[in-house]
């Protein structure tokens, strides 16, 4: 505190502002469930929203998980059970968020459930809406011989269940991991895992075509070695996309493995004959995720993923204080990462709301109400939604006001204000001080 009063001018003081200790978690998938569980352990009351009829999310469609003990549904079921038995969690299924007002510590949210609108208040919001895999595949002409990675997962479930399905598995299977706009990290792990599973369950030959085998995750390097030793063939593609053509018996995929090429001689062109081609599908933000971005007024990246505030320093925070992201909605797909993020989000919420009070520096940025013309420029330009408009008792707009608890003191509103009505009070950033240092 002393340190603070040294660096900031005396006009700034610290105040304790009460915050609501209820937390809203949007999305009942793996990330949402984990966040809710961790939050209750830290002593928070949680409202969990799920658009589907029951929580669980898209992880239930996976046949197995690499590197984690237990099947995916078991992993989720245990969490669902824990949530159901926990009195601190209120689960709303078939519900979605339709309105958000207010600011960190006191969000007012409207939730639509079965045609009814429920109003709720919470101190923080965690978005864990997950991701969606599109069904569309890059055209190859032969739909029955070309499937997506997701469809392969479905077939693997069948494969594990009965012996007869195993004999029906095609004898040559080619998995392509990348395509334009599809991240290799997204499918590297699942392709290796599935290739290994096929190899163990049937006598098929499995080929994996991949630009970079992405093994940046715990247990992935081992998975890769295991797949290699079990006889999965991995081709490394560099400059050429795999070419697919139909033959009488199946498909022929031509790949160029530059690491196999002889310098000056053979170019490394290899033709793989296969009966089944697995192509990567595009992972996208679900439609309700997109509307949520507008609703919450949070920024997203060029692919539409919820973007973190600062990738390295603040991995789960959004540009608005009090709103956090976890899991698939950020374009993340590794189960361990998702669980880690969920824990991270819960801790960030704890950091923000603990004790039900928050120490906030007040008066770092001040609005001169007599100069303010209520042109709303600051309201529009504030990246953190930290400006509100004061209204007098007749309902007329009076002036802008800085919401100190949400303000990051970046000074953008100061620079944008056409009437020069907003000033920064921190010593070195006042207009006259800037002029002096010039």
């Amino acid at each position, binding site marked *: 505190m002393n340190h603070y009063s040294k660096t900031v001018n005396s006009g700034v003081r610290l105040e304790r502002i009460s915050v609501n200790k209820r937390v809203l978690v949007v999305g009942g998938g793996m990330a949402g469930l984990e966040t809710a569980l961790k939050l209750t352990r830290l002593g928070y009351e949680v409202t969990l929203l799920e658009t589907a009829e029951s929580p669980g999310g898209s992880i239930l469609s996976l046949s197995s998980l690499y590197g984690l003990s237990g099947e995916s549904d078991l992993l989720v079921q245990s969490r669902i059970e824990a949530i159901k038995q926990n009195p601190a969690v209120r689960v709303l299924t078939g519900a979605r968020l339709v309105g958000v007002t207010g600011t960190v510590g006191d969000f007012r949210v409207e939730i639509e459930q079965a045609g009814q609108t429920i109003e709720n208040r919470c101190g923080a919001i965690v978005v864990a809406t997950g991701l969606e895999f599109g069904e569309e595949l890059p055209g190859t002409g032969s739909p029955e011989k070309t499937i997506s990675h997701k469809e392969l997962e479905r077939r693997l479930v069948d494969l594990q269940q009965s012996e007869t399905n195993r004999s029906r598995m095609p004898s040559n299977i080619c998995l392509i991991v990348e395509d334009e706009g599809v991240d290799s990290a997204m499918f590297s792990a699942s392709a290796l895992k599935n290739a290994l599973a096929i190899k163990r369950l049937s006598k098929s030959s499995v080929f994996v075509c991949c630009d970079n085998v992405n093994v940046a995750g715990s247990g992935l390097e081992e998975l890769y070695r295991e797949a290699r030793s079990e006889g999965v063939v991995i081709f490394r593609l560099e400059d050429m996309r795999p070419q697919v053509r139909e033959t009488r018996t199946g498909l022929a995929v031509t790949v160029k493995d530059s690491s196999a090429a002889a310098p000056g001689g053979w170019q490394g062109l290899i033709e793989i004959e296969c009966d089944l081609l697995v192509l990567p599908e595009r992972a996208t933000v679900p439609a309700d995720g997109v509307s949520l971005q507008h609703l919450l007024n949070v920024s997203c990246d060029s692919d539409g993923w919820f973007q973190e505030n600062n990738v390295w320093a603040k991995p789960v925070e959004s540009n608005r204080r009090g709103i956090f992201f976890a899991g698939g909605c950020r374009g993340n797909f590794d189960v361990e990462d998702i669980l880690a993020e969920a824990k991270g989000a819960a801790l960030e919420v704890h950091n923000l709301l603990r004790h039900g009070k928050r120490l906030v520096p007040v008066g770092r940025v001040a609005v001169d109400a007599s100069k303010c013309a209520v042109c709303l420029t600051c309201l529009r330009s504030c990246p953190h939604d930290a400006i509100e408009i004061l209204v007098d008792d007749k309902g007329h707009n009076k002036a802008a006001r800085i919401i100190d608890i949400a303000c990051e003191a970046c000074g953008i509103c100061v620079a944008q204000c056409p009437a020069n009505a907003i000033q920064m009070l921190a010593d070195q950033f006042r207009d006259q001080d*800037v002029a002096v240092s010039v």
Partner: protein
Amino acid sequence: MRREPRIVAFCCEHSGKLAAGDESSSAALPDNVGIISVPCSGSVQTIDILGAFRAGADGVAVFGCHEGSCKHVTGNKMVKKRVEYVARTLEEIGWNRERVAFFPVAAVESKVFRDRLAELSENVRDRIHGYEKCLGKQSESAP
């Protein structure tokens, strides 16, 4: 003897200021550069830039974060527009538009920071000598 151009650099606390380093850092900044630290490059106002020129700067650089990595989301885009506006205004009054520029820089890009400053100094150097020569001639012809 020709004097060095005076440069004022507005530096975002999250990128430019860190790239500039402090006094103890190995590669010291040239004497003709003055650093002003700002909480976000988006908080640099038009009047601040013009104020720097008024106070005798020959060139003004604004250092902000790379696009997409601004801590305050849109600050760097806003100041980019503002710098463009100042450059246009300078051009209208007969100055060279290259006297003011926005440079995206990351906190670790210390070399980029110095290169950009050197670039700006180089651009400005010829201008100011031409300008001062012109002023000198006028004063000679004046009574």
